[in-house]
C-alpha cells in the first residue's frame, strides 16, 4: 500500500491538497503588491523572509471564483510557499497534514488540467492539485 503525505487547505471551492514534500512553509498574507502584466490568478508579489514571491490565488486558478473578490477580503488568508518555486499559493485556510492512500485517489477526468486527482469525502470532493500545471508560466 502506498500513501503520500499531503498538505490540505481550503478555498471557496472546497478542500484541496498538494504533496507535503512540495511545501516550504506557510505564512499569513500581509502585504501584497499587484503585479502588472500577470494573468488574473496572480494576485501580486509578497515578500516572504525577504524573498519576493508571485502569489497565485488557488480559488481563481481553479475557476472557483473571480478576481473581483479583494485578495485579502473576508479576514486573514494564508500563503503556502512552494518548494523550489518563486511562487506562493493564496488559500483561505490550512487544514493540516494528511496521509491519503493511493487507492482512495481517483485520477482527475481529462480536461481538468490543474487537478491531478480527486478524493471522495462523503458528498464532497477533495482536489489534489497538479502544481506543475498550476504554476506553468503564463497559464494561470
Amino acid at each position, binding site marked *: 500500500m502506498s500513501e503520500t503525505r499531503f498538505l490540505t487547505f481550503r478555498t471557496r471551492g472546497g478542500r484541496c491538497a498538494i504533496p507535503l514534500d512540495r511545501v516550504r512553509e506557510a505564512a499569513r498574507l500581509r502585504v501584497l*503588491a499587484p*503585479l502588472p502584466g500577470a494573468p488574473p490568478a496572480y494576485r501580486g508579489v509578497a515578500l516572504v523572509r525577504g524573498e519576493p514571491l508571485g502569489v497565485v490565488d488557488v480559488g481563481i486558478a481553479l475557476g472557483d471564483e473571480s478576481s473581483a473578490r479583494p485578495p485579502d477580503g473576508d479576514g486573514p488568508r494564508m500563503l503556502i510557499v512552494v518548494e523550489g518555486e518563486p511562487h506562493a499559493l493564496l488559500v483561505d485556510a490550512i487544514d493540516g497534514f494528511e496521509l491519503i492512500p493511493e487507492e482512495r485517489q481517483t485520477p482527475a477526468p481529462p480536461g481538468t488540467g490543474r487537478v491531478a486527482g480527486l478524493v471522495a469525502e462523503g458528498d464532497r470532493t477533495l482536489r489534489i492539485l497538479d502544481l506543475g500545471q498550476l504554476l506553468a508560466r503564463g497559464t494561470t
Partner: protein
Amino acid sequence: MSPRPTRDEARLRREFLAEAETLLEAAGSALEAVRAGGDDPSPEAVNRLFREVHSLKGVGAMVGLTGIAQAAHQLEALLDAFRMGRARADATGGAAARAGLTALAALVSAVAAGEADPQPDPALLDRLAEAALRQPPKEPSGPPSLDVPPDLDSLLTDYERHRLAENGRRGRRLALVALDLPLDTFDDGLRKGMAEAATAGELIGTFPGVPGGPSTIGFRLLVAAGPSASPAEVAARCGGHLEWTHPPEARTPPDRTAERPAPPRGDAEAAIALPSPTRGTVRVAMEKVERLVDLAGELALARGAVALALERALPSTSDRAARYELQRAFGHLDRAVTAVGKAALSTRLVPVDQLTSRLDRTARQLAIALGKQVSFQVFGGDTEIDKTLADDLGDPLLHLIRNALDHGIEPAAERREAGKSPEGRVTLSVAARGREVVFTLEDDGRGIDPSFILAHARSLGVLGPGDADPPDPLSLLFRPGFSTAARVSSVSGRGVGLDVVASNLAALKGRVAVRSEKGRGSVFEIVVPMTLVQLDVLLVRVGDASFALPTTSVARSAEPRPEDVALHDGRTCLREEGQASVPLVDLGTLLGLPNAAPAAAEGAVVVLEEGSLRAGLVVSSIEGTVEVLVKPLSESLPRAREVTGAAEIPGGGLALTLDAGALLARATGGGAFPLPETATA
C-alpha cells in the same frame, strides 16, 4: 602548462587550513563531550564528532590531501561504528578516537608548515581499525520489544531505530511528544521544543504530527527521557503532550544505571594541538550577513520616513533654532545610515579570485585534456563582488573559457603555420566600472568568421529565408538553438549554445558581448551589477499600488496646471519651455493595471529621461525619494517587462521597482521593445 604549485593551489591550501581549523576545534569540543561520558558517551556528542570528522575528510580530499583524507576516513569509520552500536564506545574506544583526532591535528599543522601531502602513521590507522572491531557485549535476551506506533515505525531511519533499541535496552523511558504549533511561529516553537528535549534526555528523532486546528501544524518528538525527568515532564518542558510512552506506565522508578560515571581525569595523552589560528578573518554564516544587510535596508527605510516627515513638518516650525538643530542632526543620521548600508553590503563582497582561481585550475586541466599548449592568465583578481554573484558567475565564465580553449585556440601545428607562437594565450581580466564589474575573456585563437556564422544560422533556420542579415552577425551566437560545434568533443560536449550563457547572465541582470577578428582571436565581455543594490528611488502611487522609479532616470516631477498640457501630433503632451514636447502617458494604463484612471491632466507627472528618450508618466501622487534594497523578481514570474524587482518601503508597504528604459520605450511609442541585451559588436 607548468606543473609547479600555482597561485590557486596556495589559495586553496589557505582556504583548507581555515576550514580545517574550524572543524578541528568543533571536533575537539565534541570529543571532550564524548569522553566526559566515560563508558557511556552522549550519542549526540558522538554524532557531532562523526559529522565534523566526515566534513574534514571531505575538505581534505577536495584539495588532494590524501593522507588527511585517509586518516579522517579511518576515524570516521570508528565513529560510525560507535554511533550505530557496532563497536564499544567505552574509554578504550574513546582514547583511540582521541589519538585519531590528535594525529589529524598534527597532519593539518604539517600542511600549515608547508608539507605537500603529509601521511598518517600506519600504526595509528591500525589502532583505529582495531578499535572499530571491538564489538559490544551481546545482549543475552536480544533487542527489547517496543510497541512503537506503527505509523512511526515506518518512518524510522536505521540510526533512529538503533538509538530507540539502545535506550530501550538500557531501560530508559521513551516518550513520543506531540506538538501543536501556530503556523506563523512554528519554527521557533519547534526549535525550542527540540532544544528542551535534548536537555531533558536524548532527542532521537523529529516526525510530522497531526495539527489540532486550521492554523496550526503538528510535529512529534521521539525522546529518551534522562534519569531526572519523567516522560510527562519531558512533554511539558517541550510544550507538547504525551502521545506514547515505553514502558506504558508513566510511574516507572528512576533508572539508576543511566547515571553517568565521573569523567576520567589526568589523561596521559596530550591535549589536541590545534594549528595556530589565522589572524584577521572570521568566518560568518551567510544568513547572518544577509540579516545585517536586511537590517541596514530597514534602517535606510526608517531614515527615508523621517526625511519625508521632516520635509512636511519643518516649513511650519516657527522655532528657527530647532529647525536648524533638526536639520543638522538629520544630516549626521543620514551620513551614518549611508555608511552603515555600505559597510553592511561590503560584508557580502569577496575578492573575485575566489572564483577565478577555480576557473584557472579548470582551464589548465582542460588544456591538458585537449592536448593544447595554452597559457591562461587572470588579471584583477582582487576586484570585489557579491558572494552570491561570484557563485553564479562560475558556470557562464567556464562555458566561455571552455569554448575559447576548444574552438578558439588552434593546435600548435596550425598556429605555427599561421605564424603564431605555438602556445595559445587566454586571459581573463576583471575590473570594476562604477557599480558594475566587467569580465573580459580574450584569446589569440582563430577568431570567429562572420560569414560562417551567417551561413550556419541560415542552415539551422535560426535566420529564416525572409530575414535580412543582421548588422552584427556575431550576436547570432547568443540565439537559442545556435551552435557552431562541427564535432562533439569531450570538453565542450555537443556544443551547447551560448544562449545558455546569455540567459544565465540575464538572470543576474548582466549582459554579454563579443567581438572577433578572423585569425587574430576573440574577446567576450561580460558585464554584471556588482551586488544587490541599494537604490535611490522616487516613490509614486497609482491607485493603491506603489511603484519605485530610479532617481537617476527622473528628470523632474510636476503637478501640471491644465494650461501646461496640450495636444501635439494627436498625443497629449506636457509643455516645456512653451513647447508641447513631452508625451504624457498614464502609468496605470501603460502597465495595464485594472481600474487605472486615464486622467492625464489631474495627477502628478514624473518626467523620465534616458538617452534621447523623454516622457511624462501620470501618477496618482508622488510620495518622495527614499533609498530601498531592491530584491530582483524571478525570471519565471509572468509580468510586464518594465517590472524588475520588489522593495520594502517606509510604513511597511511593498513597491515594485520599474525599469526606466523599458517604460520610456513603451511610453514613447517604440512599440516593439529591444530584446534582452545579449550581444553587441
